[in-house]
């Protein structure tokens, strides 16, 4: 029996969508006194259960608005589910929108320490892999430059390098493999492959079906917050293709 890395049981996530946004006191009190604080309920996730074993790579598929990002936020602990339980075992490194934790006025090198600490690592731990991160991100010449002067590609490379080098147990990837130019993308995939070999657990969200099939061995398909298919990646991908084909593609996007 393999070790469990992530287990979700009957997880549901409710959002209260205010009909009108109330974010100032005056409106709040008026509405409160006149009992007009009404919400539209919206379930981002409904009754989601699955288990990811250690070393498994789970692809999460679904159309826009299906609840993929919400699911990742629940797993990474950013959001607490309204109902249900979540168990995770090991260090989680989220790779969601690379570089969200950077301070623009801080130099690249300093941001490595800051981002490392945000992921829960000590200064000494980061010091040991600092050079490796810089080399991987190919930022040797720019490491003392404030991140605000970085190009978006440089920023993404740095974010990716940090999250991979800290050697997490669970890696959460949200559409981030489209980073940098082709050589760098190849390097990223190679790095992720090497993490696979070390037995890292991966949760991967992407619309790129081919990439999901290449990187993952299992998958789930979400629709309107529910899991409608789960199992090995190819069978779920087939369901996804059938489903998404049935819906007219949004015009204008590519």
């Amino acid at each position, binding site marked *: 029996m393999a070790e469990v890395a992530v287990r979700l049981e009957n997880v549901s996530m409710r959002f209260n969508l205010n009909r009108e946004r109330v*974010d100032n*006191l005056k409106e709040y009190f008026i509405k409160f006194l006149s009992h007009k604080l009404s919400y539209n309920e919206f379930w981002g996730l409904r009754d989601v259960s699955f288990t990811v074993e250690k070393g498994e790579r789970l692809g999460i598929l679904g159309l826009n608005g299906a609840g993929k990002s919400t699911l990742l936020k629940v797993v990474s602990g*950013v*959001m607490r589910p309204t109902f249900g339980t979540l168990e995770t075992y090991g260090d989680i490194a*989220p790779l969601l929108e690379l570089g969200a*934790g950077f*301070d623009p*006025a801080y130099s690249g090198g300093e941001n490595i320490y*800051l981002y490392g600490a945000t992921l829960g690592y000590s200064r000494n731990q980061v010091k040991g892999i600092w050079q490796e991160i810089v080399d991987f991100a190919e930022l040797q010449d720019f490491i003392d430059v404030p991140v605000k002067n970085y190009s978006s590609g440089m920023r993404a490379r740095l974010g990716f390098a940090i999250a991979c080098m800290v050697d997490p147990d669970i890696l959460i990837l949200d559409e981030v493999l489209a980073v940098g130019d082709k050589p760098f993308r190849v390097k990223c995939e190679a790095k992720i492959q090497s993490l696979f070999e070390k037995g890292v657990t991966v949760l991967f969200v992407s619309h790129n079906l081919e990439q999901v099939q290449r990187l993952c061995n299992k998958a789930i398909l979400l629709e309107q917050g529910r899991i409608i298919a789960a199992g090995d990646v190819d069978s779920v991908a087939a369901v996804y293709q059938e489903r998404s084909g049935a819906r007219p593609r949004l015009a204008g996007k590519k």
Partner: protein
Amino acid sequence: MAKTLVQETGLLSALCVQIERILPRGLKPHWQRFMKYRFLLQELVRKNVRLQYRGSALGLLWSFVQPLLFALVLSFVFSAIFKRGDVSGVPYFLYLLSGRLMFSFYSDATSSAMRSVRQNSGILKKVYVPKYIYPMSAVVSRFVMFLLSLPVLVVFMVVFNYVQINDGISFGHFFTFGYHLRVLYALVPIVILLVFAMGVGLLLSSISVFFRDTEYIYSVFTQLLMYLTPLFYSPDDIKTSEGLKKILRANPLYGLITMFRNVLFYSPGVPDLVANENPFFYSGFQLGYVAFIASVFLIVGGVVFKLTQDKFILHL
């Protein structure tokens, strides 16, 4: 040097292990999480202090120069224009400087803590981090900057011969036993102010996530608080009814700043700032009151923060 550092951290981690052992079961996970993220607290404080004056020519010197300029301007305005003299024997410039250092720590710490959660919403939405780390680091950073600016006060106490007046000793014997003790007494109001600012900061940071008005209201409130605290006037100048005076004294900053000044400037030869025959620079009642208020704010701030933090993400 490096070796002592290692030893120190060794001692510190041993202490932390001991703390973990004696904690009740319910608090243990919280403590463990704090221990894991204490590096983030360190990094954030380091960042805030470094970035505060980065890009300015004087750099960290600004933490001395700024309060100095402030006190110079105000003492010029009040001494030259309004003919304001010493306050109970304390040179007006020193009186201003000491009060302003304490007050601006409080106002800077609370207002940057208030904004901290919203400012870091980008991270809080993506990565799990204990959310209180952000207001906490804002307060601690301001505290570090406050400590860095204290030497300016020491310098001017020497310039105004204060050290000699008090202790009859020269600067060469600055750190005699008597002065050591006095420094310890000055630490008490400083630490209580830190606790108070932490409590207010936690409270404000969680409220301001839900109501943006808080930021505007609080900046006006801080202004009011500044005038209600005896920074550039003496408590003896207050010419109102006794009832109103009592209300003014209820302001914990009033007590804390008076305590701080009493420690610095009190000496048997010079009349005291508040009628206080106590050899301990401040009365037990005064100490008890501010300590009580600070603890209440810390507890209320902590509880409000804990109860509301899961909803932050929906409002950020």
